[in-house]
């Protein structure tokens, strides 16, 4: 349902604007020790020796751990742990010999598998002593020859087969137009503003971790397994998380290591990742090289769509960018061929990054479609409409709901697409070239089981509890609104507690699934509470009065939501269209994104203001991808050079125009009682391509790599 009254402000905004919101490194338990990691400077290599004597002599240093003594804390390599941590994701899709070996786990062997690998941890009284200790560790590495590049052809991963060629049943005429080109995207770093940190307090056989994670329950499972203790003895608290975007979606070594250190030293320990640690100790998006081939008949109907991706993964990890996912199902080509080829390299293990696969994949595909449209002399919107997939051809299922055509129409009208010249270089403003471009975005809408508990107190206030996290998405606000609406009370009566693993089970906040998974559970919990209060005999009784009538001080009820039936007869996707205006000062290659209009079909919009904010976030990631974001590795050592926020540029205020977000707000009849699909990723896919397509329209310059090189914009 959609609320008629003005949207509530973000529920935790007061804590955030006053500085009272406590993030993982803000907790300061009595006697807390500070821990930092030492990164290996190059790889592949073997640690010939690592001398910690001087480090241990630094006043204030309490302990130094390396592969030689970390086992004293119970830290160990164990194949049973691999599947619970970030290293395990995707290994089952690769199925190569390396996938059978133990995954990377720092401080368990003398192997240095990638530059930046953690090879020592210094624990000290105070930040300064820990830093001084790090500088005093002496490392002697023996370089190893780079591994033979082995190419792997992965099997099914995420929602699709990574090697799939099929004929869809759609018919196109004889091919008249062909586009064949390669596209490249670089290493990208999530760069949440809050670097990951874990503050561990071991006490009386159990540990409380103040952590920065997108998933408290998954963290609990992994940390408990690492410690070898029962899950109930591990409590993960992540009430405030300073952004994630995938970097805090998987479980990384530091989360468990902090707990091991606290247990071994019998002191609270804060293990803090520095900004430079983030890109090597909490994942990244890998570079991609993609090859697209499109063939279309005279009317622009696709006879062939091939999408071949070459992507790396680490020596022992598993995750790779599934770039071709959307190409399997987004357009009705007569024949579709998707291939992925993964190469193991001495790099840190990549990890999901906002819309993994779809983001680089859509840059290639949506740019290629623009090239085809130009070649065929067909409007880019019209070309997409002619190839609209009225059902998911890959899974051979109807869409639960798909209003993509209306997204195109509304976006085109709003940006003034009718005034766009089909030919490049036709518009100027203040001497600058002006162009319009567009692209499609799409992202799946998964649902996982979730639980929520609501408690009515004697005062009439209601406590809502779940282990779900609010990483800036607005989960607190959505829960309050949902429960208030269901109970028929004011949201001001609602208190939300979330982000604690001991609260009812909820999935990790990632893959655009949280709201669709948790809100039905919240609704069910509120209805169960009403049922416990008994039939409403007098309509003018408040909840507090009804509770008093039962003679109980408070009453609780839990609600549960079910996962989607794997045999579901429909495919669940969100859709949208981005329209972008750019200005290019060709003489100096200065490119400015001057307007973005994003029209989205995400089912019901539960909270318009928060939804718009989230889409803007995705759009700004797209601006960063197109204009500036690039992780660079040193060619000889493999070290991530751009491991800081000066060398890895992200959009600043000056780069961000007013972003116009428009939701169709048409309920998806098959997405449960709310009809809402997720929003976390869909702002990003397609955006970089829409900018590049606008650059082409402005200047006739076709750009097939991100970030757009200056040499492609000028000269």
């Amino acid at each position, binding site marked *: 349902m959609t609320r008629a009254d003005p949207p509530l402000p973000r529920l935790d*905004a007061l804590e955030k604007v006053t*500085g009272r919101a406590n993030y993982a490194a803000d907790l300061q338990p009595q006697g807390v020790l500070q821990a930092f990691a030492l990164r290996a400077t190059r790889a592949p290599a073997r640690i010939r020796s690592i001398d910690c004597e001087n480090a241990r002599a630094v*006043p204030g240093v309490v302990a130094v751990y390396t592969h030689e003594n970390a086992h004293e804390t119970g830290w160990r390599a164990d194949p049973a742990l691999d599947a619970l941590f970030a290293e395990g994701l995707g290994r089952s899709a690769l199925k190569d010999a390396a996938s059978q070996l133990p995954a990377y786990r720092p401080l368990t062997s003398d192997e240095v598998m990638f530059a930046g690998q953690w090879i020592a941890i210094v624990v000290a009284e105070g930040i300064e002593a820990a830093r*001084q200790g790090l500088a005093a560790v002496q490392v002697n590495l023996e370089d190893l020859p780079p591994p033979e590049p082995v190419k792997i052809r992965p099997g099914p991963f995420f929602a699709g087969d990574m090697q799939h060629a099929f004929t869809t049943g759609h018919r196109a005429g004889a091919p008249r137009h062909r586009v064949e080109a390669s596209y490249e995207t670089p290493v990208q770093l999530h760069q949440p*503003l809050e670097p990951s940190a874990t503050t561990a307090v071991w006490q009386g056989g159990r540990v409380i971790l103040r952590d920065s994670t997108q998933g408290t329950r998954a963290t609990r499972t992994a940390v408990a397994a690492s410690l070898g203790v029962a899950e109930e003895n591990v409590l993960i608290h992540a009430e405030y998380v300073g*952004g994630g975007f995938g970097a805090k979606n998987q479980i990384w070594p530091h989360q468990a290591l902090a707990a091991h250190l606290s247990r071994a030293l019998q002191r609270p320990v804060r293990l803090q990742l520095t*900004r430079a640690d983030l890109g090597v100790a909490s994942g990244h998006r890998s570079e991609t090289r993609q090859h697209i081939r499109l063939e279309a008949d005279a009317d622009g109907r696709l006879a062939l769509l091939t999408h071949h991706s070459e992507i790396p993964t680490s020596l022992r990890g598993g995750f790779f960018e599934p770039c071709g996912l959307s190409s399997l199902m987004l357009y009705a080509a007569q024949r579709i061929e998707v291939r992925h080829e993964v190469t193991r390299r001495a790099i840190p293990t990549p990890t999901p990054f906002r819309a993994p696969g779809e983001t680089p994949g859509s840059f290639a595909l949506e740019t290629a479609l623009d090239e085809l449209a130009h070649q065929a002399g067909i409007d880019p919107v019209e070309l997409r409409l002619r190839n609209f997939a009225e059902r998911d051809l890959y899974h051979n299922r109807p869409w639960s709901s798909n209003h993509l055509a209306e997204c195109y129409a509304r976006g085109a009208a709003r940006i003034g697409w009718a005034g766009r010249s089909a030919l490049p270089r036709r518009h100027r403003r203040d001497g600058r070239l002006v162009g319009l471009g567009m692209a499609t975005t799409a992202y799946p809408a998964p649902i996982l089981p979730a639980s929520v508990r609501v408690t009515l107190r004697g005062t009439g206030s209601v406590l809502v509890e779940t282990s779900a996290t609010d990483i800036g998405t607005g989960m607190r606000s959505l829960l309050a609104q949902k429960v208030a609406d269901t109970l028929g009370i004011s949201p001001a009566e609602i208190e939300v507690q979330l982000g604690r693993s001991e609260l009812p089970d909820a999935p990790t906040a990632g893959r655009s699934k949280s709201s669709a998974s948790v809100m039905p559970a919240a609704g069910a919990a509120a209805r169960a509470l009403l049922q416990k209060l008994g039939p409403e005999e007098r309509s003018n009784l408040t909840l507090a009065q009804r509770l008093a009538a039962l003679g109980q001080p408070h009453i609780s009820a839990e609600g549960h939501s079910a996962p989607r039936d794997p045999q579901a007869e429909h495919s669940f996707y969100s859709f949208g269209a981005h329209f972008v205006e750019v200005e290019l000062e060709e003489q100096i290659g200065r490119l400015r994104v001057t307007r973005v209009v994003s029209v989205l079909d995400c089912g019901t919009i539960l909270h318009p203001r928060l939804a718009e904010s989230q889409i803007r*976030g995705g759009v700004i990631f797209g601006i960063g991808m197109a204009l500036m974001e690039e992780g660079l590795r040193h060619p000889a050592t493999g070290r991530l050079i751009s491991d800081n926020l000066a060398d890895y540029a992200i959009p600043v*205020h000056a780069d961000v125009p007013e972003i116009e977000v428009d939701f169709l707000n048409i309920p998806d009849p098959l997405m449960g009682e709310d009809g809402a699909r997720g929003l976390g990723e869909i702002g990003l896919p397609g955006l970089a391509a829409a900018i590049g397509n606008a650059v082409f329209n402005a200047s006739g310059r076709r750009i097939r790599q991100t970030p757009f090189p200056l040499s492609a914009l000028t000269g």
Partner: protein
Amino acid sequence: MSAGPHPSQSLPLTLSVNGITHHVSVDPRRSLLDFLREDLGLTGSKKGCDHGQCGACTIHINGERRLACLQYAVQLDGAAITTIEGVSAPDGGLHPLQDAFIRHDALQCGYCTPGQIMSGLALISEGCPRDPAAIREAMSGNLCRCGAHNGIIAAIREVAHGRD
């Protein structure tokens, strides 16, 4: 190698933070940010990079916006520091800019928010330009990754120049 300064070499320091005078002794290696966070427990100033690149630790020193991670605490003897914790009225009432941030949804995860507000307050007192592009330029030292930029600029404009 030398063991370096020992904590016993801490140096005396007197400074005012949010109107409260502190007589303390600090490790000369300690940044103002770590002093505020670890010694005074004022964790509203955030450590996003510890390198002067993100703006999350923006505070005011004698009324001017500065990055707390780029100052050694011992250098600030006699200084008056204001952090996000000192922005609200003594009765807890929000500063109009804090209120505008809430109304414009100028935050998502909230981690950059204290720094954005401290920078925005300073910009307003410096004489906030009317041109939104100039405001964006003046705020570009404060990074946001969630994408609250539009709301942040709208909130600052509103407080500086009133509602349009």
